[in-house]
């Protein structure tokens, strides 16, 4: 019973994760020492964390 419950929780968490529009860890990232899945909880903060557009650098030659 306990095993089933854990399996369901794991499945639901993976489902939520895969259905979210949050970023996933790309092929270019190597992670060591921590697990990927707990990041799901903080990924919901995306809108707060990420200003959409910033003038991030400014080579501004005027024509």
């Amino acid at each position, binding site marked *: 019973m306990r095993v089933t419950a854990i399996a369901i929780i794991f499945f639901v968490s993976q489902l939520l994760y895969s259905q979210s529009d949050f*970023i996933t*860890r*790309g092929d*270019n*990232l*190597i*992670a*060591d*020492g*921590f697990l990927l899945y*707990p*990041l799901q*909880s*903080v*990924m919901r*903060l*995306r*809108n*707060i*964390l*990420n*200003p*959409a*557009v*910033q*003038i*991030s*650098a*400014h*080579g*501004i*030659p*005027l*024509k």
Partner: protein
Amino acid sequence: MNMIITTRAENTAQLHMLESPLGSLLQITKEIEPVRNAAFEPTNGNYFLFLKDTGGDEFTHIYKYDLTDKSIDALTQGQRIQNGFPVWSNRGDLIAYTSTRRNGADRDIYIMNPNDPSTDRLLIERKGGGWGVRDWSPDDKYLLISEFVSRIESHYYLLQIESGLLIELTDKHKGEAYFSQGEFDANGTGIFFITDLNSDFKRVAYMDFGTKEIKFLSESIPWDVEEIELSKQGDKLVFTTNEAGETSLYMIELSSGNAKEISVLPRGVSGNMRFHNNGVDMSISINSARSSTDVYVLNTETEKLTAWTESGMGGLVPEELSIPELIKWNSFDDLEISGFCYKPPAKFTGKRPVIINIHGGPEGQSRPDFIGSSNYYINELGIAIIYPNVRGSTGYGKNFLELDNGKNRENSVKDIGALLDWIAAQPDLDAERVMVTGGSYGGYMSLAVSVHYTDRIRCAVDVVGISNFNTFLKNTESYRTDLRRVEYGDERDPEMYEFLESISPLNNAEKIRNPLLIVQGGNDPRVPRTEAEQMKEKIKSNGGVVWYLEATDEGHGFAKKSNSDYQRYVTVMFVKQFLLGDS
């Protein structure tokens, strides 16, 4: 009038055209890699040049973008070569630029007609990686060439293009002084520049080629002059100063010599000034704690400031963002150190946890500017963030800048020890919950603070940091090695080698008991990946807690949104687990 600006609408910063104030941004470049700067052909603007590297490796090549047919051509070729940003001749027929293509270590001077890359030719070979092109003389017969040695020593030369004759302008043998941002005057009879010659702070100066006499134009201002910009007609010189981190703007009418402050800038940090060819309008980027960087145009006759961009804040409410407070404390030797403290809103009661975020360089400075998503820690997690400017930072004079050089390295670490004492004395800050972080040199500092004050911090985040100065100097790209030896010491000297071994965090890793997060770009040419890997393995072998995140398509920090987002999420998780103690 139009301008090219750089912003990131999708995954990386790209060039955008803007044709009117607050007009729509038309994205020009759509590269996978970031594109951060551009220079219009100066006579008709039908095309522009830009630089781009691959995966953050900083091996930049020059590209030409034709605005008529939108084609892009690479003007330089080759592997593991760093080409500098091109400087246009006044006629618009040639560019001058630096390149390490000869041997990877020395930066030589080249010229080329961008419309015919086969004209590319070596103008003069130079020894060392610190050479740069500043400006063309008005008749396009001379180049102003700079040689960077350190942040307290550089030199200027005139290079006669036809003969290759190099004429020394600054007296190299007369001791150390720093010269930067040189520009020819309108007649080609002298140059304007910034220097700390005979002063603790940097001033605007003018040198007449005939007499070599140097005249100072900003003597009454007891702060560093940061940037100068000369109008195309040569009649106005605008300059900014860094006054306790904030920018002030001044203008000199060169016909009369009258200087005045232009008090139209909002409080914050400004720079990247560019005059329009009309000699009146000047663009400038402005940033503050409550506003991401935006581009403005200043009419230098009416002093009217007009916003050209309005950056998105992504749901952040400007009025809710913390305004940093200038804080000061005395270090172990009574030297006054300062920094900026962003405190959480009043809804968070009790003593607040603290993140100490140390800048890189070490020749750099934290300023009271927009900290973007780091506001999350303040507004949502109730954490105060302190950005210290330890000894060795810029902005506080030449003497302060030199206080961490060579064998004085760990005195800057003690400045953080004194900051921990200061935090403990504050009624609203929690000395029991402190995290230290930083990038590059700030990454080294995070590791060094973990070595020396492990019982006084909960955890640390090292981003592209140095773990051993000797292996760093061995493995950093060769065009940087000598320039970094000036700061850290020459490891070829056995005594210095031993000293650097003794202070390197890698060799003291057994003292680190706090958890570490290490973040690294796989292609980092400055602090190579090996610095992070060896630290990770050492902590692991010691049985410590270490998280490691590497992006194989990044360099000295993460520039792609997908990667930097992920870094941020990992860091938030690390903070919640180890600083705040969440399960």
